[in-house]
């Protein structure tokens, strides 16, 4: 029986929404910052000034990539810190104005759990529902606004199902009402065009390792005049708003990676979309009782998310892993909780189908041969697990 499953194995990494390999050009740009240009940008001598110049160049690269001004970019330890800072910082600075926050049910936990913390402190949070494709309705954002609303936070694109949100439409509503608008763009950088002005975004979180940059570095864009508290107390780094000696190598890597990601976006999107659409089409055609999660067209070019009925996601992942394929699932069985993905359940999937979801996220090194290989092994994995399942009606 295992002969059908084993046989030739090929290493295929299709979990680029989790993390990406660092590009050689990025590593090369970072390397001198470790042992040659190691100065602390806060010091006064030449070595430090050199580090300061390097850091500000990287800040400019990040700003350029999202249409911001250089001084509106604040380096953080990653996307999670940027989201935490945006939400808690704006909430704290506007406490006298109001206590109401609007977000969506499908945000990343960095946003959702920040909101939960604020709820414990007495803030009120509206978690907007999404449609079956995972889209937030802009009109629903407007309806949720009250006199006490001090922040709107809706992600640019979802990490699990890849659904792209109507950010510009929500941004316009936020601007009309004079409410700060934060977007978690961690999955969106290098995947969709981002321009903070035309999208009406006041705060934006991004993370280096999602676009072939290093881990441990991200940034928060803060539009000038946005009221926000400090996140880290200490030295005067990051214009006095985020203390701590700057991660100069990380920032340099982030700057280089975002520059390359944005420059190469058009050709990457074309290439990845073709692979994505072939994967989706052939999986749905060849494997019965399967559905696509997320939006058919308004989705990230690299995201495939399908639900297989009657089987559980972690089992699928482990069998794929023995065949060399690295993927991800919305099933809770990979974590300590028993709850399936909050994103898939918000889209209306019953729990057993949410448990049976598989996420494949494509990236720079994937080829058509990788797609062929996944399409050749996946039906056998699904069939094998379905034979074991008491839910399968074909007994």
């Amino acid at each position, binding site marked *: 029986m295992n002969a059908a499953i084993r046989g030739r194995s090929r290493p295929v990494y299709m979990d680029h929404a989790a993390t990406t390999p660092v590009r050689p050009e990025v590593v090369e740009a970072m390397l001198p910052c470790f042992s040659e240009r190691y100065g602390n940008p806060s010091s006064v001598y030449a070595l430090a000034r050199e580090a300061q110049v390097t850091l500000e160049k990287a800040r400019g690269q990040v700003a350029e990539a999202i249409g911001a001004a250089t001084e509106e970019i604040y380096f953080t330890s990653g996307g999670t810190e940027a989201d935490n800072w945006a939400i808690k910082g704006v909430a704290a600075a506007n406490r006298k104005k109001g206590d109401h926050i609007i977000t969506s049910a499908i945000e990343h936990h960095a946003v959702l759990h920040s909101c939960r913390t604020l709820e414990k402190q007495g803030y009120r949070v509206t978690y907007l529902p999404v449609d079956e494709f995972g889209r937030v309705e802009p009109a629903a954002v407007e309806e949720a606004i009250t006199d006490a609303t001090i922040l709107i936070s809706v992600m640019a694109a979802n990490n699990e199902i890849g659904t792209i949100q109507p950010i510009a439409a929500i941004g316009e509503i936020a601007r009309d009402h004079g409410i700060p608008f934060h977007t978690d763009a961690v999955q969106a950088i290098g995947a969709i065009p981002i321009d903070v002005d035309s999208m009406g975004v006041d705060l934006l979180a991004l993370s280096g390792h999602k676009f072939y940059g290093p881990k441990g570095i991200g940034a928060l864009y803060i539009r000038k005049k946005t009221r926000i508290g400090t996140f880290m107390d200490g030295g005067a780094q990051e214009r006095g708003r985020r203390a701590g000696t700057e991660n100069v190598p990380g920032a340099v890597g982030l700057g280089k990676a975002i520059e390359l990601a944005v420059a190469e976006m058009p050709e990457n999107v074309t290439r990845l979309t073709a692979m994505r659409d072939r994967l989706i089409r052939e999986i749905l055609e060849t494997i019965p009782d399967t559905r696509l999660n997320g939006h058919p067209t308004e989705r990230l070019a690299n995201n495939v998310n399908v639900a297989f009925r009657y089987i559980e996601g*972690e089992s699928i992942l482990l069998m794929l892993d023995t065949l060399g394929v690295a993927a991800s699932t919305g099933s809770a069985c990979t974590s300590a909780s028993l709850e399936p993905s909050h994103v898939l359940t918000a889209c209306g999937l*019953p729990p*057993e189908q949410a448990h049976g979801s598989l996420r494949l996220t494509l990236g720079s090194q994937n080829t058509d041969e990788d797609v062929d290989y996944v399409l050749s092994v996946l039906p056998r994995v699904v069939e094998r697990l379905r034979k*074991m*399942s008491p839910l399968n009606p074909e007994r």
Partner: protein
Amino acid sequence: MYSERVMDHFMNPRNMGEIPDADGVGEVGNPACGDIMRITLRIEEDRIVDAKFKTFGCAAAIASSSMATELIRGKTVDEALAVTNRAVAEALEGLPPQKLHCSVLAEEGIHKAIDDYRSRHGAREANGG
């Protein structure tokens, strides 16, 4: 994350399937939690001569079902009832803490299948008497 024994029972499950006209059937679990186990038993003279499982769940759930059915085959009903979730987990060379509930589910599945057998068996005896 998983022991070699868990991976072996996951990739090469023992006793996978369903006994037709089984003497005892136990289905436990809940789709919301992502685990459903269905244990079927063939019992002759109070001895489990065959045990099979079907499981919807993670690798730990599948391996626990496989190991549990292995452990109770050939045992008397009373001996099978003494097989604990700990015994299943130990036979698998351990389970990660967040997966221990899978071995609990296997124990519950066996108990439920035996309860089903006893209620039917008892009912038959009562009818006969």
